[in-house]
């Protein structure tokens, strides 16, 4: 029996909290560290002389002076004005795969056995973490079908760039570096698939979607491949959630002219155990361990874009890589043909550790269940949205199932009521939802919305999510101004776009703030 869905009478905390620098009171401080004992002082000498002059600031940094309780209060207040995966059903952020990050994995990375490791320690003293990195690589090889992985790239964007670098190195080594100067991508691929090769100096040719299927046209691809083609960079599946049934054919076309094929699998959630990049003929791929593999997101910070390649390309991967000689694990710094380092030391190893723990906890069958559940959740939600919510549609291949996400359109609602996706997104905040992802630019689908309900959400979560949009749609049709002026119950009210976009109003630091506001 369908349980009645009661929408929350939500209201976010609103502290009107000043910027931390504004809280500064000269003379306030945190704890005082007691002076070192006499014996230590005698041993070390004058601490001022221990630090080389070249490393010392000439002027003390202008940090806020605040006592510890005020610091704690400040950040707790801000945290109450923050929405996120751990406080709401964060279904809205499609392409980001906002799944639950098991807390046991946090205990692993915060454990002193891991946290106190130093990257310059001798291999003999770090066999445990080396074994984990090595075994995580074996797992990803099995999951993707590729022959070697590097965990050095610090995010998906860097992994795509690193793949572009490997591609360049491969063609150059074959004497075709100058000739093969064109990359093909699709407009619905993550923008980095165009940006990274362009940064490497390639001419980037972009395919548009077929107006009927929403997938890139094979005929269009055939029209642009040539002896200049270096490779195809494509997000698969694209963020529309539409399964590209011609992907193998596309790969074969690019291979037929000597190009390589690179799959952006930042979001792999709908494919675990179902199909592998290598089996579709791809030569390289990457996974965002901070997405599909449960590690928390970190905006190019504590992330990992695991970069996988076929055997013949392994020599170009970033170095060092962890190897195993049958007895012990070690960092292999050889590799004369490597593209070099792309990140300090070994990349973000904490993310690898979390992902490895997650993979081992899930097991092979569990990973397949992730994809199955993510797809079922997504199609259940799509059915509810398209059936119950007025003014929304799922363009391209209407009536067909989707993979792990859907790019919806509120175009009809906008035409009927004047209420568009940005209004609806803000109004969703009044019902306790994190904002949702609209679309990468340009908007090929008008008034877009791209949620992704991963495997982590229950039927009750999905029902509540759909009910919220059913309610907002009703509001749009009965009282459009109510939605247009939203939000009313969040920490920040409606912000005008021109103000955000105007570089003259942009303030990125306290120093700039003071300058623009004329403060001393």
């Amino acid at each position, binding site marked *: 029996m369908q349980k009645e869905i009661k929408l929350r009478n939500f209201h976010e905390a609103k502290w009107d909290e000043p910027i931390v620098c504004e809280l500064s009171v000269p003379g306030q401080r945190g704890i005082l560290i007691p002076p070192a004992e006499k014996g230590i002082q005698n041993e070390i000498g004058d601490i001022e002389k221990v630090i080389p002059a070249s490393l010392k600031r000439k002027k003390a940094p202008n940090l806020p002076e605040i006592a510890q309780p005020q610091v704690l209060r400040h950040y707790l207040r801000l945290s109450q004005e923050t929405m996120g995966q751990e406080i709401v059903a964060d279904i809205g952020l499609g392409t980001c795969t906002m799944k639950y990050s098991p807390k046991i994995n946090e205990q692993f990375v915060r454990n002193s056995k891991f946290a106190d490791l130093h990257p310059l320690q001798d291999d003999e003293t770090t066999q445990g973490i080396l074994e984990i990195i090595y075994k995580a690589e074996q797992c990803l090889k099995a999951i993707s079908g590729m022959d070697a992985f590097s965990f050095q790239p610090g995010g998906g964007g860097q992994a795509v760039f690193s793949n572009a670098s490997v591609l360049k190195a491969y063609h150059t080594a074959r004497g075709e570096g100058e000739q093969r100067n064109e990359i093909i991508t699709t407009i619905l691929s993550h923008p980095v698939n165009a940006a990274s090769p362009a940064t490497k100096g390639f001419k*980037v*040719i972009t395919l548009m979607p077929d107006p009927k299927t929403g997938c890139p046209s094979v005929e*269009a691809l055939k*029209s642009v491949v040539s002896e200049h083609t270096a490779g195809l960079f494509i997000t698969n599946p694209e963020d529309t959630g539409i399964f590209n049934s011609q992907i193998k054919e596309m790969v074969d076309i690019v291979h037929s002219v000597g190009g390589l094929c690179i799959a952006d699998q930042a979001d792999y959630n709908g494919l675990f155990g179902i199909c592998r990049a290598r089996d579709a003929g791809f030569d390289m791929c990457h996974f965002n361990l901070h997405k599909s593999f449960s590690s928390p997101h970190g905006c190019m910070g504590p992330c990992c874009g695991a970069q996988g390649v076929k055997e013949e390309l392994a020599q170009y991967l970033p170095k060092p890589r962890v190897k195993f000689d049958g007895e012990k694990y070690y960092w292999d710094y050889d590799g004369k043909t490597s593209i070099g380092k792309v990140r300090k030391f070994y990349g973000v190893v904490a993310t690898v550790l979390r992902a490895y723990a997650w993979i081992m906890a899930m097991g092979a069958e569990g990973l397949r269940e992730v994809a199955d559940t993510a797809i079922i959740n997504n199609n259940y939600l799509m059915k509810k949205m398209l059936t119950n919510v007025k003014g929304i549609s799922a363009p391209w291949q209407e009536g067909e199932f989707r993979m792990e996400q859907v790019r919806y359109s509120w175009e009809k609602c906008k035409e009927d009521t004047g209420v*568009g996706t940005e209004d609806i997104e803000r109004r969703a905040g009044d019902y306790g939802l994190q904002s949702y992802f609209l679309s990468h*630019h*340009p908007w*090929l689908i008008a008034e877009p919305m791209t949620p992704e309900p991963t495997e982590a959400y229950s039927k009750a979560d999905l029902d509540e999510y759909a009910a919220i949009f059913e309610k907002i749609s009703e509001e749009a049709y009965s009282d459009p101004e109510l939605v247009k002026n939203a939000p009313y119950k969040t920490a920040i009210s409606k912000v005008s776009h*021109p103000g955000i976009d105007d570089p003259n109003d942009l303030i990125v630091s306290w120093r700039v703030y003071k300058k623009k506001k004329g403060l001393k």
Partner: protein
Amino acid sequence: MKKIGLIINPIAGMGGRVGLKGTDGADTLQKAISLGAKAEAENKTVKALLALQEAAPENSFIIYTCSGKMGEYACQKAGISPIIVYHPDAMTGAQDTKNAVEEMQKRNMDCLVFAGGDGTARNICQAVGDQALVLGIPAGVKIHSAVFATKPTNAGKLLAAFCQNKTAEKESEVMDIDEDAFRNGQVSARLYGYLRIIYAPNLVQSLKSGGVFNNKEANFGIADYMIDHMEKDVYYLIGAGTTTRAIMERLRLPYTLLGVDIVQNKKLICQDANEKEILEMIDNKPFKIVVSVIGGQGYIFGRGNQQFSPVVLQKAGKENIQIIATLDKLVALQGKPLLLDTGDSVTDKLLAGFYQVLSGYDEHYVYQAVYE
């Protein structure tokens, strides 16, 4: 305080409701009236003015308009007291639109707002060229031009934003069709010119592209790439349009907005060339054609660039045609292909297929061109 000039074409839109394909020409108007057509433009203008009043700060604008049906009545219905600058006869026509524009120009309007369709836009374009900032309230039967707000209330909102200096401006196509041909079932719209319009992404064009693109910068990106890759001694036939014009501007050469200019080694060889001149110039010599896309429609040949005749196009071949268009323009086609209508089916067939459209500096999008 902004000075807004308002001109209504009172008969605009009257043909549509009674099944005529426009209201241009006295005979058509009479026929429309006899079929029971009612004036639509005034009501639509009232809607725009009400929206303007609601959204604009007090005392932020003043309306200058014409007496009676050409603006005064609409202002009264919206509760606005305008300044009357022109008094038309009872039976208004295209000349009245032009006269009204002239009177407003004398008074230095900040912008000219007109209610009408493509025919009215054409008259305004003839009268002001690029000398005034304008905005159309969509009220005609034919709305092919890109100079109109998406609906009357949005025109009002856009004007309110303009009064608060929150809008940008851009050049947009004035398109019109041969109405006689249209009534006989033949659609043949052509590029007639460009108007500088008040612009805010979500109120002028449909919100298909979402991104905030600066058209001028995008055009210059395209132009710079074209110039950087011009080959020695090759003739470049630069077609009509604002995207192509950017190439001439960057080369600091005179240009013809609605014609073909020929450039070789970055120097102007022939301005506003006709078919005969083009054929003489390119005889057995290497040349390339550079064309832009007509916004919203997708035509690349056969609309306003007849100088690129089937003979010229066949000599060029598909490989020597470079299509240029901003990504904004491509996305606004909503997946519709580029269109060929050279008037010769053999040429159309020869040129059909996929092109790499240049959309920015070294940005290439694969797009299909078809013929109907």
